[in-house]
Structures are given as structure tokens and as C-alpha cells.
């Protein structure tokens, strides 16, 4: 618990703060005194009843057991009364117990006289212990009540701070503050803006114009105390309190007290005043200003990220599209086509620009995944098309390798997002080409195995150590051997595994060891197609 909260709890225990229960029960005048009498009568009657019960118990006990338990038994009503109704009831129980003990159990019996001086000492000692105990028990009760109340308040504060964390603009924040004050005070609280422009935003919670004018006057005067202002048209009293420092241009709080006037209104006003003070401590403590600033930063970050995604797509990829497009034209020009050196240079530009475009795409994909996750568009797809699509995508990258295909003929359809799966398989092809020597074989196969369609890509390249295999799924995995060999962000495999996971599948790597090649595979679940007998629809 923070030191501030501790301080506040201590303050509550020592000072007599008005309790919520009193504040929230506005009572009509006529019924009030009756109620108070009833409230006080019940504990007294109950206390006497308990003392009576203790006396009967003692008579019974004394009949069977000859020990003197009088002082001990009469202590019970004292503890119960003090913890239940407070010190007053405890004191009543103590005296009633002393009188009953004297009357029923100390000789001469059935008289208030005392025969033995020893009995007088006994009884006085009992009375002293009973009074001290009732005092302690009553304080214990008060502490428990205060703690409960504080716990509730902390709960509300927590909810309030959570609410603040989700505020994205000052409007949300002002509403959150108003809600918190209204809940805490149990009266409708409205923040009043210093600037007239802000008023329009809160027409629903409008404060009568008279009250508003008064509030603005008080703000201008820099009043430090709360004032009760009467709304002459609706005959409702409002408590207006200037707040300093003001929250985002809101310089006063108006609390609607209701139709009450006179003494009662003044009493409630005093309570509201002290609670507003507390609330202001809370608001300062919760760093409302910082909260709104943080919320604004979060909001801007989100906008910035979207702008970055859009901007990077356009500003970086458009020039790259020009470079790649121009390369494709250059290669067709006779002057380049006939010159091997020039052609090799154009190829190099083309390859590197293509690589750069891939990396940018990976970065964009990773940013999108981090921001919004993956939302696959599932549709029935032929695994054959996924293999062809991935091969076409990586055609240039694979041109230096010997690609072989082993696609099963009657492989079932899969319910996946074909674009994502194709991109993931393309990534496996990309990796195979990157980490295996030119001219070596890359074997692509697809088959159905244990209720899964499995695509695998086997290369003759670097292979993986046990350690590297364990790190494969990480966001930017590249083993030290991979870093040395080739460029790239290392995001590709993470994106691939994220895409596959979004389709309900998984990614696996196998390798007999370093420099012995790698087999990467994608597994996708086969779900039964909800399809009537296709004979009618197809065999015609």
C-alpha cells in the first residue's frame, strides 16, 4: 500500500469523518427523531437482554459447578455489545452486569448491599476490566468499519484509474472524473468549464445558468471555500467549489444537493466539502494530467503507426516499384540485351531492389500483426494451388536452384486463408534458397498425413543445430551462422508461423545436423467439407 493510502487510513481512524451511511440517507424531518429513538433503543434493550441471559446462565452453571465464574460470564455481554453497537452499549452492559452480579450472586443475595470487602474489590475490578474491554472492542469495531470503507474506496479508485487509462481525449476524461465524483459523493457532480467553448460538449449534464454564472464568478474571484447556491426556478440547492489546479480548463465542481435547505443542507454541504477535498487529493495523486497526456500519446502512437504503415507502403515501395519496373524495361532494350556486363548489372539492381521490397513487406506484415493480429479469410482451397502460388511468388529467388515437386494427387481441400498460407510456404522456399548453395536441390512436397495436409520444403543447405531449432519461432530469429551468410531481418519465419497459427496449423523444422540440410514443414488440419454428394453439381 502506498504511503499516501496509509496516511489516509490513519487519518480516518483518528479523525471522525462523516460516514457514507449518514450522507446517503436523507431523511424526512417528521420521521427523523422517531428513527433515531428506535435506533438507540434497540441496542440498549438488546444489551439488557444479554445481561439477563448471562444471569440465567450463571444460575444454571452455579447449580452444577461450584466455581465462581460470575465476572467472566458478565464480560461476554460487554464484549458483544461494544463490538456490535459501540462503546455506549459496552458501558451499559458493564454497569448492568455489575448490578446484576451484586444483586443475584454476592451476599447478601437479592440485595444491592455487599457483605465482604473482598467482594467490593472483585466487583470494582470487574467494572474496570469491563470498561477497558468495551473501549478496546469498540475501537476494534471502528477500525474494522474504517478499513472496510477504505477498501471499498480503494476499489472505486482502482476502477476510476482504470477508467482514466482508457480515456483517449479530454471529453472522456471529464466524464470519468464526473462519474467518479458522483459515485463517491452520492450526489450528481458536474465539472464547470471556465471557457464558454467547452460548455457545448456537455449539454446533457447541463447545470442551470444561474449556478453556472455563480460558479464562473467564484472562479474569477479565486474563492477557496465552497458556496451553496440556490437554483431559484427549480428550488434546488447546488454546492459550488472552485478547484485548483483546474482540470483541463474546468475550474469548478457543482454538486446538486437537491431540494433540501437550511441546517440539513449546511451539514451535507460540509460533508461534500470534505469529500471534494479528498477527491481533489485523489485526482492529484492519480496524476490526471499525466493520464490524459499518456492517453494522448497512446492515441498518437496508434495514428503514427497507421501513418507509418501507409507511408512506408507508398513512399518506399513506390520508388522500388519504379526501379524494378525500369529494370524490367532495361533488360529488354537491345543495347542492354546484347551487352552481358550491362545485363548482369541490371540483374543485380533488380535482385537487390526485389530483396529490399521483400524486407519492407516483412516489416509491414510484422507491424500489422503486432498492431491488429491476423484475421484470416477462410475459404476452401486446393493445396495444389497453394504450392503453385508459392512457387510463382518465389520464382526468381529459386531460379538458381534445382526445384523438384512431389504433390500427392488426391489431397483433400483445406479450409484456410490461401493468401496467408501461400505467403508462409513462400517464406519456407525463400529460406531454403537463402541457406542452401546454388544448384542444390530444393524438394517441395505435399501430402495428407494423420488428418493433416503437410507441405514440406527440404533443402541441402546449412541445416540447424539443436539450439537453433529451439529458437526458430522467435520474432527475429537468425542463428549466428545465418547472420554471417546472408542479409535480412529474420522476421520471415516468425511471420510465417504467425500466419500458419492463424489458420489453425503449425510449423516444424527438422535437420539431421549442421550442414546436412533442413526440412521445414507446414501442417494444416483437414476439416470435413460440408458438402452434399457432389454428383448432382459436378457430374453433368
Amino acid at each position, binding site marked *: 500500500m502506498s504511503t499516501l493510502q496509509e496516511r489516509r487510513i490513519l487519518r480516518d481512524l483518528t479523525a471522525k469523518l462523516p460516514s457514507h451511511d449518514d450522507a446517503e440517507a436523507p431523511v424526512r424531518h417528521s420521521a427523523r427523531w422517531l428513527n433515531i429513538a428506535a435506533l438507540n433503543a434497540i441496542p440498549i434493550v438488546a444489551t439488557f437482554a444479554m445481561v439477563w441471559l448471562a444471569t440465567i446462565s450463571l444460575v444454571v452453571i452455579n447449580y452444577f459447578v461450584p466455581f465462581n465464574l460470575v465476572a467472566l460470564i458478565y464480560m461476554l455481554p460487554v464484549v458483544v455489545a461494544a463490538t456490535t453497537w459501540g462503546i455506549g452499549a459496552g458501558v451499559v452492559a458493564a454497569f448492568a452486569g455489575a448490578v446484576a452480579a451484586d444483586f443475584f450472586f454476592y451476599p447478601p443475595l437479592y440485595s444491592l448491599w455487599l457483605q465482604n470487602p473482598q467482594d467490593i474489590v472483585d466487583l470494582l475490578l470487574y467494572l474496570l476490566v469491563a470498561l477497558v474491554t468495551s473501549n478496546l472492542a469498540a475501537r476494534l469495531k471502528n477500525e474494522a468499519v474504517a478499513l472496510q470503507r477504505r477498501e471499498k474506496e480503494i476499489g472505486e479508485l482502482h476502477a476510476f484509474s482504470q477508467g482514466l487509462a482508457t480515456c483517449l481525449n479530454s471529453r472522456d476524461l471529464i466524464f470519468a472524473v464526473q462519474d467518479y465524483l458522483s459515485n463517491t459523493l452520492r450526489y450528481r457532480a458536474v465539472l464547470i468549464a471556465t471557457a464558454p467553448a467547452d460548455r457545448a460538449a456537455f449539454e446533457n449534464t447541463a447545470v442551470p445558468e444561474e449556478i453556472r454564472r455563480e460558479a464562473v464568478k467564484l472562479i474569477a474571484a479565486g474563492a477557496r471555500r465552497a458556496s451553496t447556491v440556490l437554483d431559484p426556478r427549480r428550488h434546488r440547492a447546488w454546492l459550488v467549489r472552485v478547484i485548483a489546479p483546474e482540470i483541463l480548463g474546468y475550474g469548478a465542481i457543482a454538486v446538486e444537493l437537491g431540494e433540501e435547505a437550511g441546517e440539513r443542507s449546511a451539514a451535507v454541504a460540509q460533508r461534500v466539502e470534505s469529500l471534494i477535498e479528498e477527491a481533489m487529493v485523489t485526482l492529484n495523486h492519480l496524476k490526471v494530467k499525466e493520464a490524459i497526456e499518456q492517453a494522448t500519446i497512446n492515441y498518437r502512437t496508434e495514428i503514427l503507426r497507421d501513418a507509418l504503415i501507409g507511408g512506408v507502403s507508398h513512399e518506399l515501395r513506390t520508388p522500388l516499384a519504379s526501379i524494378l519496373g525500369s529494370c*524490367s524495361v532495361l533488360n*529488354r532494350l537491345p543495347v542492354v540485351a546484347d551487352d552481358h556486363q550491362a545485363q548482369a548489372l541490371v540483374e543485380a539492381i533488380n535482385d537487390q531492389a526485389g530483396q529490399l521490397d521483400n524486407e519492407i513487406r516483412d516489416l509491414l506484415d510484422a507491424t500489422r500483426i503486432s498492431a491488429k493480429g491476423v484475421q484470416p479469410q477462410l475459404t476452401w482451397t*486446393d493445396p*495444389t*494451388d497453394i504450392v503453385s502460388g508459392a512457387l*510463382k511468388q518465389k*520464382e*526468381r529467388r529459386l531460379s538458381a536452384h534445382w526445384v523438384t515437386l512431389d504433390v500427392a494427387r488426391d489431397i483433400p481441400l483445406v479450409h484456410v486463408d490461401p493468401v496467408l498460407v501461400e505467403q508462409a510456404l513462400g517464406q519456407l522456399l525463400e529460406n531454403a534458397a537463402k541457406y542452401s548453395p546454388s544448384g542444390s536441390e530444393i524438394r517441395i512436397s505435399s501430402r495428407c498425413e494423420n488428418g493433416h495436409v503437410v507441405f514440406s520444403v527440404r533443402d541441402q543447405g546449412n541445416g540447424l543445430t539443436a539450439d537453433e531449432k529451439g529458437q526458430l519461432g522467435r520474432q527475429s530469429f537468425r542463428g549466428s551462422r545465418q547472420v554471417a551468410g546472408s542479409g535480412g531481418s529474420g522476421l520471415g519465419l516468425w511471420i510465417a508461423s504467425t500466419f500458419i497459427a492463424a489458420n489453425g496449423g503449425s510449423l516444424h523444422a527438422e535437420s539431421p545436423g549442421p550442414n546436412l540440410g533442413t526440412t521445414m514443414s507446414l501442417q494444416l488440419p483437414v476439416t470435413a467439407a460440408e458438402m452434399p454428394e457432389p454428383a448432382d453439381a459436378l457430374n453433368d
Partner: protein
Amino acid sequence: MTKVLVIDDEAQIRRFLRAGFELHGFTIIEAEDAAGGLRAATMDAVDLIILDLNLPDLDGSEVLERIRSWSNVPIIVLSIQSDEHEKVRLLRLGADDYVVKPFGISELLARSDAALRRQLRSTNRDPVVKAGPLAIDLVSRAVTLNGKRIQLTRKEYALLHGLATHVGLVVTHQQLIKEIWGGHASNIQYLRILVRKLRQKIERDATQPQLIVSESGVGYRLNQNESGAAPGGRGVPSNSYSA
């Protein structure tokens, strides 16, 4: 001479498109915004429009819709986003095909060629569509593979017909489903299985399709020249994205 209108706000893209198209005997008209593009499309008798979607003054799809409201000139859309729903939407709005940036000039030339041929076929009423070893007579409904007649079921022919009338261009799944099963509700599984059956009859290896290729999330394309994926290091096919 075939006149091509390029509507793109990026000067560098226009420059390489001009070079690429002119190298192959086309005449180029450039427009750097939607207003200029719409003006040129109305004033000049253009044969083909290459339309970028990111225009400063008007959304590219809006330009597409406006041109389509009075003209059936072939339009190929250039898009940097790889959002499949958007591609399908553009095709539905009347684009003949799309090319995703970055692209090579050969890919765009192949699409342009396909779109121009389709336009030409509708005017000279040539009934025979050729796609690699495949020939489809749209009038007699005869299909030959390497000169030999092959038998197709009615549905298989409907599928091939749908693709053949757009040979070289993408045809969306919904478009094909509508063409094959008409108004009857049908789902994509049927289409996938029908494509598989047809591939077994016309492809050299149905597990490595070269004629009917899939455009993920969008539709199918009947390749004019047998090509596509190149397993076994067969080299780069002619109409692929290559320098």
C-alpha cells in the same frame, strides 16, 4: 497503332511504362491525375487504359466506374495493396485485370495483350480461343488438346468456356460459379473439385498446373501460353515477373 492511356501520379512509373510500351510499338498518352485521365479517355480514342488506384484528386476505383459508365475500353488496374477483397471489387466494377506493384513490364504487357485480344475477338467474332496446346471453339464447343479432340462434361466445358472467353485474364470465383451453376446456389468446394477434374483432362500434370492457374483469394486465369511455376529448374517463363 495501339494507343495506351497511362493514368498514374508517379512520374517515374509513367516513364518506365512509356519506355516499355513504346519498345513494343504502342503509343502512349500520359495523365498524372484523375481529371486529366478522364479528359484523355473521353477526347482521345484510346485502346487500353492503365489506371493507378492512388490518384491525388479522385479514388482510382471512382475513375474506373466513371469510365465504365460509357465505355468498354479494356482497363488494367495498378495496385500497391494486396487486399484480395479489393481486387475482386475492382474486377466487379469493370476492371479487365489488375497488376500488383512491383511488377515487371512483361507481366503488364501480357495482361494488356490479353485484354486487347479479348476486345478484338468481340469485334471480329473469331470463335476459336487458343491457350498453349489447348484450342476451344466457342461456337461448335469443340475442345482439342495438341490437335486431338477431348471429351468434357457439360460443367467442365462451362468452366473452360468461362475462362476461355477471358483467356489470359483473371476470372473471379463468383463469376465462374455463376456461369457454371447459373442462378443455383453453389459453393466454392464444387468449383475447386471441378477445376481439379478439368485439370486432369487438360494439364500435362494436374499437380503442377500450367494452364489453369489460381489467383489466391480472387479467381482463376487460363494462361495463353503454357507456363507458370517452373519446377525442375526449367527457367523463367515468358510472361512471368522477370527483368
